[in-house]
C-alpha cells in the first residue's frame, strides 16, 4: 500500500515512527514530503532554541538514518502544489508527481499575520517552492517574524544574542513563553497583549494577574490593554524595509528592533481546500481522522479539525477546531498509523478513540514561572449556587490567593471531580492537580489538603519534631523515641544499654549519636 505523508513536523515524525515496522516488512511503502529543508524536529522547543536556551541538536526527534535504512523515502525542502484526488496523485514543487493509495496530511499551522497598517501593502512571496499557505509570512519585511519554524527561530536567536529590543505581539501561551525565555537570556523584551491580562484564553483574571506579576519579576516588560493598529518600517539601504516600531490605536509608538508575531496560528489548509476537501478552522475530518469528503485522505495534528461530518452542513459553521497542542496530535498520529497498518495487513483497525477528549492542560514552559490551567476556569466562587445549599452535583469553586508570594489557585469541580483549574506559583500543587484532572480523580473534601504540597514541612521536613514520642530513631530495628526514653527513665545510661534493651543502634549504627543525644536530654530534664 502506497502511503504519502505531507508535512514532516513532530506529528508527522510520530506517524513515521509508528508505521516503520510495517515499512520494514514491506506492507507499507511510505514517502514523506516536507516543505522545510530539515529532517523533522521538535517544534515545541523552538522558542527555547530561539532564546539560545537549547542547541539545535536538542530539537532532533527522529533517527533519520534508521528511517532511511528502513526504506522510507523522505523528500525535504519539497512543497506539494496540488492533489489530484481522482488519479490519486500529488504534484510537487519541482514538477514531479507522486501516486498514493492513502494520503496523510500533517501540514500543521502557520503564524497568523494580524491586520496591521503597514503590513497590508506587503507583497506575498511568489517563490513556487514556498507552500501557498506560507507566502504571506515569508513575504514579511525584515525584522518581523512569526515564531513557528527554525528559520524564524534563527532570526530571533540572533536578536537575543545581539541584545536587541524585542517586541512580542500576542499574550497567548506561545507569546508569553517566548518572552519569558528571551528575558531569561538577558534580552530586552516587551510582551504586548490586547486584554487586561496575558493568557486570557486559558486563565481567569486572578490567574492572569498572578502571571503578569511573575513575568514582570522575571524581567519582561508587560504592556496590556494595547491594541496594535500598525507597524512602521524604515528603509534600510541594501535590504529594503525593516521594522522600526509598533503603533497603538491612540497613536502610541513602541520602538523595537524585532517584532515577533504571536497572534495565533492558522491551519495550513490551502492544499486541501484547493483539492476540494471541506475545511473550516482546519481540514475537516471525522473522528477516525478521515476527510469528510475522501476516505483515502487523513489529516492529523494542527491542520486537522475533528468534527462529526454532516452532509450539507456549511463548513464555516462547524464548531471546535485544531487543539494546537502536541499531545493530541501525537495521539492522532498513533491512531492513523494503527489504522493504516491494520488496513495494509488486512486486519481489523484500532478502536476509535474517545471523541470527547477533555480540554488538555495548558502549561507555560518557563523557568521559575509556574503556570498551569485547564478546562473551565471562569466560574466565580460565589455564583455557583448549589454548593451553598449543600446539594450534590453542583459546580464548586475554591480559590487561594496569596499575591505576596505570587501564589494563586482556583479549582472548579463538579461532583468533586476537576472540571478546570488554574495554578500559579505553586509547582508541586500544579503538578498534582494536572494528574488529578487528567485522571478525573475525585478530590478530597477538604481541598486545602492539596494546597499543602508545596509546604516546606513536607519537602524539607523542617517542621518535623525529632523528639516526638513516635519519631523513629533506629530505622534498622524500628525503635521510636518513646521506647528509648522509657528505657532511659528506667536507668539505661549508655548507648550500649539502650541497644541491649531495645536493639536501637545495633543495625547500621547511624542513630547512635541521636541515642546519646536522647540520653543527654533526659539527664538535662531529669
Amino acid at each position, binding site marked *: 500500500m502506497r502511503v504519502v505523508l505531507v508535512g514532516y513536523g513532530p506529528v508527522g515524525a510520530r506517524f513515521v515512527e509508528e508505521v516503520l515496522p510495517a515499512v520494514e516488512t514491506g506492507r507499507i511503502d511510505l514517502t514523506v514530503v516536507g516543505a522545510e529543508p530539515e529532517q523533522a524536529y*521538535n517544534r*515545541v*522547543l523552538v522558542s527555547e532554541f530561539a532564546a539560545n536556551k*537549547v*542547541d539545535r*541538536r*536538542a*530539537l*532532533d*526527534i*527522529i*533517527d533519520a538514518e*534508521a528511517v532511511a535504512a528502513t526504506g522510507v523515502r523522505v523528500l525535504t525542502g519539497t512543497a506539494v502544489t496540488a492533489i489530484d484526488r481522482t488519479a490519486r496523485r500529488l504534484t510537487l514543487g519541482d514538477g514531479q508527481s507522486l501516486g498514493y493509495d492513502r494520503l496523510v496530511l500533517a501540514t500543521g499551522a502557520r503564524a497568523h499575520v494580524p491586520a496591521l497598517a503597514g503590513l497590508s501593502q506587503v507583497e506575498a512571496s511568489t517563490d513556487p517552492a514556498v507552500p501557498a499557505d506560507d507566502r504571506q509570512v515569508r513575504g514579511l519585511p525584515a525584522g518581523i517574524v512569526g515564531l513557528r519554524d527554525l528559520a524564524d527561530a534563527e532570526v530571533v536567536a540572533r536578536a537575543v544574542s545581539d541584545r536587541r529590543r524585542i517586541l512580542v505581539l500576542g499574550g497567548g501561551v506561545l507569546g508569553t513563553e517566548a518572552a519569558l525565555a528571551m528575558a531569561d537570556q538577558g534580552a530586552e523584551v516587551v510582551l504586548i497583549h490586547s486584554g487586561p491580562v496575558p493568557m486570557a484564553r486559558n486563565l481567569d483574571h486572578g490567574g492572569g494577574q498572578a502571571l503578569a506579576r511573575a513575568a514582570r519579576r522575571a524581567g519582561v516588560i508587560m504592556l496590556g490593554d494595547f491594541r496594535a493598529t500598525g507597524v512602521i518600517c524604515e528603509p534600510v539601504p541594501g535590504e529594503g524595509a525593516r521594522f522600526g516600531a509598533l503603533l497603538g490605536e491612540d497613536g502610541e509608538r513602541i520602538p523595537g528592533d524585532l517584532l515577533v508575531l504571536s497572534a495565533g496560528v492558522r491551519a495550513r489548509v490551502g492544499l486541501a481546500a484547493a483539492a476540494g476537501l471541506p475545511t473550516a478552522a482546519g481540514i475537516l475530518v471525522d473522528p477516525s481522522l478521515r476527510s469528510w469528503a475522501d476516505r483515502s485522505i487523513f489529516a492529523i495534528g494542527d491542520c486537522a479539525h475533528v468534527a462529526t461530518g454532516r452532509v450539507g452542513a456549511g463548513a464555516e459553521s462547524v464548531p471546535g477546531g485544531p487543539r494546537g497542542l*502536541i*499531545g493530541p496530535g501525537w*495521539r492522532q498520529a498513533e491512531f492513523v498509523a494503527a489504522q493504516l497498518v491494520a488496513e495494509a495487513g488486512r486486519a481489523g483497525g484500532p478502536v476509535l478513540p474517545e471523541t470527547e477528549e*477533555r480540554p488538555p*492542560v495548558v*502549561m*507555560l*514552559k518557563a*523557568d521559575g514561572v*509556574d503556570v498551569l490551567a485547564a478546562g473551565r476556569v471562569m466560574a466565580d466562587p460565589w455564583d455557583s449556587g448549589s454548593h451553598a445549599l449543600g446539594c450534590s452535583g453542583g459546580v464548586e469553586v475554591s480559590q487561594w490567593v496569596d499575591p505576596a508570594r505570587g501564589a494563586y489557585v482556583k479549582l472548579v469541580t463538579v461532583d*468533586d*471531580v476537576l472540571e478546570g483549574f488554574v495554578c500559579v506559583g505553586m*509547582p*508541586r500543587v*500544579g*503538578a*498534582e492537580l*494536572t*494528574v*488529578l484532572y*487528567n*485522571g*478525573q*480523580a*475525585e478530590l*478530597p*473534601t*477538604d481541598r486545602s*489538603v492539596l494546597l499543602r504540597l508545596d509546604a516546606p514541612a*513536607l*519537602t*524539607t*521536613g*523542617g517542621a*518535623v519534631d*525529632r523528639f516526638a514520642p513516635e519519631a*523513629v530513631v533506629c*530505622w*534498622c*530495628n*524500628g525503635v521510636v523515641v518513646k521506647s528509648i526514653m522509657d528505657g532511659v527513665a528506667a536507668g539505661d545510661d549508655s548507648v550500649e544499654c539502650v541497644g541491649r534493651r531495645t*536493639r536501637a543502634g*545495633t*543495625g*547500621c*549504627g*547511624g542513630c547512635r549519636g541521636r541515642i546519646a543525644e536522647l540520653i543527654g536530654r533526659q539527664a538535662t530534664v531529669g
Partner: protein
Amino acid sequence: MATTASHCPYCALQCAMSLQTGADLPEQQVDHRPPVGIGSRDFPTNRGGLCKKGWTSAELINSAGRVTTPLRRVGSEFVPVGWEQALDDIADRLRSIGERHGKDAVGVFGGGGLTNEKAYQLGKFARIALGTSMIDYNGRFCMSSAAAAGNRAFGIDRGMPFPVSDLDGAQTILLVGSNVAATMPPFIGHLEGTRERNGLIVVDPRRSETARLTDDGGGLHLQPVPGTDLVLLLGITHIVLNEKLYDEHYVQTRTVGWEGVRRSVAQWWPQRVQEVTGAPTGQLREVAHRLAGGRGTYILTGRGIEQHVDGTDTVTAAINLSLLLGLCGRPGSGYGTLTGQGNGQGGREHGQKADQLPGYRKITDPQARAQVAAVWGVDPDRLPGPGVPATELLGRLGEQIKALLVHGSNVVISAPDAGAVARRLAQLDLLVVCDFFCSETAAHADYVLPVTQWAEEEGTMTNLEGRVLRRRRAIEPPQGVRSELWIMAELAQRLAAPGVWDTEAAAVFDELARASAGGIADYSGLSHELLDTEVEAYWPYPSGSAGTPRLFAERFAHPDGRAVMVPVRSRRHAPRPVATDELTLVTGRLLEHYQSGAQTRRVEELRSARPQADLQIDPATAQRLGIAEGDPGAISNLRGEVFARAELSTGIRIDTVFLPFHFGGRQTANALTEAVVDPISAMPEFKRTQVSVRRADPVEVQG
C-alpha cells in the same frame, strides 16, 4: 561458648553474623530458646550491625511450626512418612508423569534464597535427572528486569559492580524505587555520608522510611505517580542532554547508541514529564544538576521501578542516564541495582533460570551446552532447550505441567494473581514442596520434605555486590531433616540419572566452579577452602585471578568493550481516565518481614510488631471513602478481594494505596495483582494495580 562465622539468612546484604553455640550459652537456660545465639561480626557491608530480622533469626530453628519429618497428604491431612517411602513414591510418580505426558510435564520452581550449590544442583537436576526444560524461579519476580537491562547495556549482570562501601564517599546518590530503610536497614549506614552532604535523592510514590531519610536537609524526595518512573528518567535525561550536563568524552569513547537515546528523549521536555509524573519541573532540574555535580554520583535502582511491565526499559533509562553522566566504571561513582533475596545474585547465575546454564550462560549457546554437558557427564543433545519464565510456568500448572517441585519459594503468596496460582496448584497430579515450615504453598502439597536451615548447613551465597560468602554449619539439624543436596541425590539415583550427585556443599561448589569456567559469572578460581580464608571474592573470579571488586574500569563486557545505550520509549503515558472511585495499589515490604513472611511471621517479636497487613491510605482519601483509622478495609478488583486494616498516612499520594505482600489468607496482596509481564524480562506488574477500596464489615474480615 563456640562461635561460627556466617551470614544472615535473609536479604541480599548478607550481613555477617556470628552463630554462638555451647552449653554456656545464656539463653539456653530457658527451654524454648533457640540452640544458637546471634552475635555481632564485623564486615564491610554491615559493620557489626543487624536489623531486627537478623537479631531474631535464630528463633526459626526450633520454631513450633518447623517440619521435622516428611509429610504426605492423605485426604485433607498430612501424615508423617519415612524418607525412603516418600522418595520412592515421588520418584515413581515423577517417572510415570514424564512417561505419560512428556518430560516437560514436570516443572521445577526454585528460589533466590537457595545457596549457590543448591541453585546449581537444582538446575542440573531439572535438566539431566528430570530431563525437563520447565524450570524457573522466584528471582523472576525480583531481579529479572534489572538483569535483562544490565545484560543488554553492560554485557554482564552483577547488581552492584562495585563494593557497597564505595557508596560511603558519594556526594549524590539517586535511589529510584528502593526502600532500603525497611528492606535492608544496615545498608543505610552507607548512605550516611551522602545524607550529611545533603545529597540523597529518593524517588518513591510513598514517603517511605527511606524517603524520610531525605528530611532535615538530607536531600530530596520525588513522589511521582506510580508507574511513571520511565518517563521521569527520560525527563531527567532530556535535561542532562539539553543543558549539556553530560560527559561528552566518556559517551564518545565508551558507549555506542547515544544518538538514538538523544532523539528518543527529545520529546520528554520537563513540562510534559511533569504532566505525566506529577513531579514538578523545578525538582527535575534540580535532580539533573545534582547528578551532574561531579563529586561522586551513584544511581541505584530497586524493585519499585523494576516490578512493572516496562521494568526492563525503565532500568535501561536509568542506565542510559548513568552512562551519559559517565558514572559507570569511574572511581567513586556508578550505577547499581540492589538485589533483594539473600542469594538473588548467585541464584540467577547458575542455572535456575529457564534459559540459562551455570556461569550465566545461555542454554541456547552450543559451546556452553557442550562445556556444561561435559562437566555433567552427558551428551549435549540430552540437555533440554530453554523453558518458560515463572509466570508462564505457573500459568501452565494443571494443563501442560502435571507435577511441580518447589524449592525455597512460596508462590501462593509471592506470584501475581495468587488466587489463580492456588487454584492451579490444586489441579496438579503431584506437588512436592521442600521447606522448613508448612508454608501457604506447602499446604497444597502432596509431599512436604523438611530441609535444613542456614545455621545447619554449609554453602555459599553471593551478595548484592557480587561477593561470594560462606554460610557455615553451627549446629546439627533436627533428626528427620535433610539437605536439598541429599534429596536431589536420592531422587537422581531413583530416577537412574546420569552424572555425579554430591551431597557435600564443598564438592558441589567445586563442580559449579568447573561448570562456570569461562562463563560470564566465572567462579572457577574459587573453592570453599579459599573462601574460608575470608578472601574478598568478587566474581568474575577465573582460575588464577584475584577476582574483580570493580567492573568496567577499562571496558564493558561486550565484544567491542563499549556499553550499549538502548533507546527506550514509554508506551503508557497517555492520561487515562479512570473511574473516580479507583485507586492505584502499590505492593511492597515492611521492616519486620521478609518475602512471603513464611519465616518472619513465625518470629514472635516480628509478628507482634506487624501482625497483619495494614492498608496505607491518605487521610483525605479515607475520609472520602468513609474509612477511619483502624477500620477494616476491603480492597478489590476483578481478580480478588483482600481485607486489611486502614492505616491513615499523609505519606502516600491521594490516588494511591499500599499493601505489604508478606501475608496470606484474606490478606494476600497478590490476589489483586495481574499476571501480565514485561515482554523482555517476564517480570510481572506488582506496583500498579487498579483497585476499589471500601469500608468492610468486621464480619467479612473474620469470614
